[in-house]
C-alpha cells in the first residue's frame, strides 16, 4: 500500500521519501514505481517529461536518513498496534515539531495510536486512509483523533481535493466509514449461503451485480481482497465494537481460512482459480 501512496504523491510533484524496515524491499518498490511510470508513458497516459520529473521526486531512504523537516509522514506498515506505536514514538522524537504524522491504518483508533506522543504532536496526528490502488482510487478518509487540530484536517482535505482526490472527513470510530459500512455487503452474503456452496455464491454475486449494480459480487470481492484479510477486518471491527451483532464474523469465513482457501492469491477461495 505504501508503494502506491508514495507513487501518487510523486505524481503530485511532491518530494517523497520511501522508507521500509527492509531497505531492499523499499528499493524493489521504487523499481516497481519506475516500471509503472514507464508503462503509463508507453500507453500515452503520462508524458515523457512528466515521467522524468516524477522519477526525480521519489527516493528511498533509511529512517535515519529521512528529512526531519518533512511536512508530512504517512505510516503504512503492517496492522500491528505495538509496531505502529513504536514507530510513532521514534518519529515523534526525530521529526520537526511542525511535521504532521498520519497513519494509513484501516483498523486501529487514531487516538489510541497517538497515546504515547507529545501533546503538541497529538494535535498534528491523524488518520489518512487510502484505498488500493492509491494511484487510481480517489478516496482518502481523513480521520480526526480526539486531540487532532481540526484546522489541520480541514487544510489537508482542501489540499487533497485540489489534487483530485476525494477526501472525506470522519471521526475516530472502528472501521471509519468504508470498512464499517461495507461489512454487511459480505455479512449478509455469507448468511444467505450459510455453508459453502459455489453455486449459491455465484447466485448471490449475480444478483448483486445484475440487480444492485455492484461491479463485483461479495464472494468475488472477498476472493480478490483475500478471505483472510476480510475475515481479519471483520473480527477487528466486531471486537472494537465490543461484539456488536451487526459485525459478527461468519463461521464460513473462519472455515475458508482454516482450509487455506484465501481467494485468488492462493488459487482457491469461494471460486477456483487453478487452471
Amino acid at each position, binding site marked *: 500500500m505504501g508503494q502506491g501512496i508514495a507513487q501518487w504523491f510523486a505524481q503530485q510533484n511532491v518530494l517523497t521519501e520511501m522508507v521500509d524496515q527492509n531497505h531492499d524491499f523499499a528499493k524493489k518498490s521504487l523499481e516497481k514505481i519506475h516500471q509503472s511510470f514507464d508503462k503509463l508513458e508507453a500507453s500515452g497516459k503520462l508524458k515523457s517529461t512528466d515521467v522524468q520529473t516524477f522519477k526525480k521526486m521519489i527516493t528511498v531512504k533509511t529512517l535515519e536518513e529521512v528529512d526531519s523537516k518533512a511536512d508530512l509522514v504517512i505510516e503504512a506498515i503492517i496492522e500491528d498496534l505495538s509496531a505502529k506505536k513504536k514507530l510513532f514514538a521514534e518519529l515523534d522524537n526525530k521529526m520537526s515539531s511542525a511535521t504532521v504524522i498520519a497513519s494509513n491504518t484501516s483498523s486501529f483508533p487514531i487516538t489510541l495510536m497517538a497515546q504515547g506522543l507529545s501533546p503538541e504532536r497529538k494535535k498534528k496526528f491523524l488518520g489518512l486512509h487510502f*484505498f488500493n490502488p492509491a494511484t487510481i*482510487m*480517489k*478516496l482518502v*478518509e481523513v480521520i480526526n483523533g480526539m486531540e487532532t487540530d481540526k484546522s489541520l484536517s480541514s487544510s489537508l482535505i482542501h489540499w487533497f481535493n485540489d489534487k483530485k482526490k*476525494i477526501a*472525506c*472527513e*470522519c*471521526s475516530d*470510530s472502528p472501521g*471509519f*466509514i*468504508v470498512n*464499517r*459500512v*461495507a*461489512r*454487511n*455487503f459480505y*455479512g*449478509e*452474503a455469507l*448468511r*444467505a449461503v*450459510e455453508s459453502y456452496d459455489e453455486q*449459491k455464491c455465484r*447466485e*448471490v454475486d*449475480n*444478483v*448483486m451485480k*445484475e*440487480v*444492485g*449494480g*455492484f*461491479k463485483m459480487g*461479495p464472494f468475488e470481492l472477498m476472493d480478490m481482497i483475500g478471505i483472510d484479510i476480510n475475515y481479519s477486518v471483520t473480527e477487528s471491527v466486531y471486537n472494537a465494537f465490543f461484539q456488536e*451483532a*451487526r459485525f*459478527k464474523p461468519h463461521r464460513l469465513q473462519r472455515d475458508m481460512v482454516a482450509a487455506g482457501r484465501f481467494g485468488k492469491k492462493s488459487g482457491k477461495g469461494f471460486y477456483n482459480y487453478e487452471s
Partner: protein
Amino acid sequence: MNPNTMVVAHPDHPLYMELIKHYRVRTIDEALNTYEPCDLVIDLSPLRTQKKFLFLKELSKTTKAKIISDLTLSWGEWILKYAPQVGGALSTLFYAPNKAFEYTLREPHDADLKKAIDQFAEVMQMKAVEHKNLALSFHYPRTIAMIVNEAYFALGEKLATAEAIDLAMKNGVNYPLGPVEWGDKIGLHYVAQLLEELNTITRDERYRLSTELKLHAFKNL
C-alpha cells in the same frame, strides 16, 4: 393493457405509475372485495409475512388464478412452503439501480409462470434475475437494507456527514449509489420494515434498527 392479468399494488409502490399504464391495478381491498376474472395475479402488496400470508389466503378464496407474489418484506421460504397457491415470488419493492428484479419459482416450476415473469419484466422494461435458493429473504433487499442501516448508525453517532458517507462508499469501494441516497430512493419505511421483519423472524440482534433510521423512516411514513 393485459386483460388476463391483475396486479395488486399500493400507490406507494415504486413501479406504480408504470404499472397502471400496462395492467389492471387493484388495491388489496379491491382485490379481495371485487370478483374480477383473470388468469394471473401479480401481487405486489408491501406486506410482511403474517399479513401477506393472510392476504394470499383470502385472495385464493376469490380467484383461481395463478399467483406470483412480491415477497420483499416477507419470509420467502415460509410463504412458499405454507401458501401453495403462490407459484412464484419476486422482489420489486426496493429501487434497483440496474432496473432489474429477483424472482424465484416453486419447483417443479410451472412453465407458464416463468413465461409470465419474463413477460412482466419485458412490459416493465426490467431484467428478471433468477434466485433459485430463496430462504429468509431475497438477496438484494436484505443486503442493501443492512448497508443503509449501518450508514444511519454511523450518522447517529456523528461519524461523518451523510454526504461524506455517500462519497466514501462510491469512491472507496465503487458503490453505484451512496447508502444514504440509496435509502432515500428505496424509501426508509421499506428499509425499516424489512429489517424489523428479519429481526422478528430470526431474533438476531444484527437486524436491529438504528434509532436514527427509525426517526427518519417514521417521518417518511
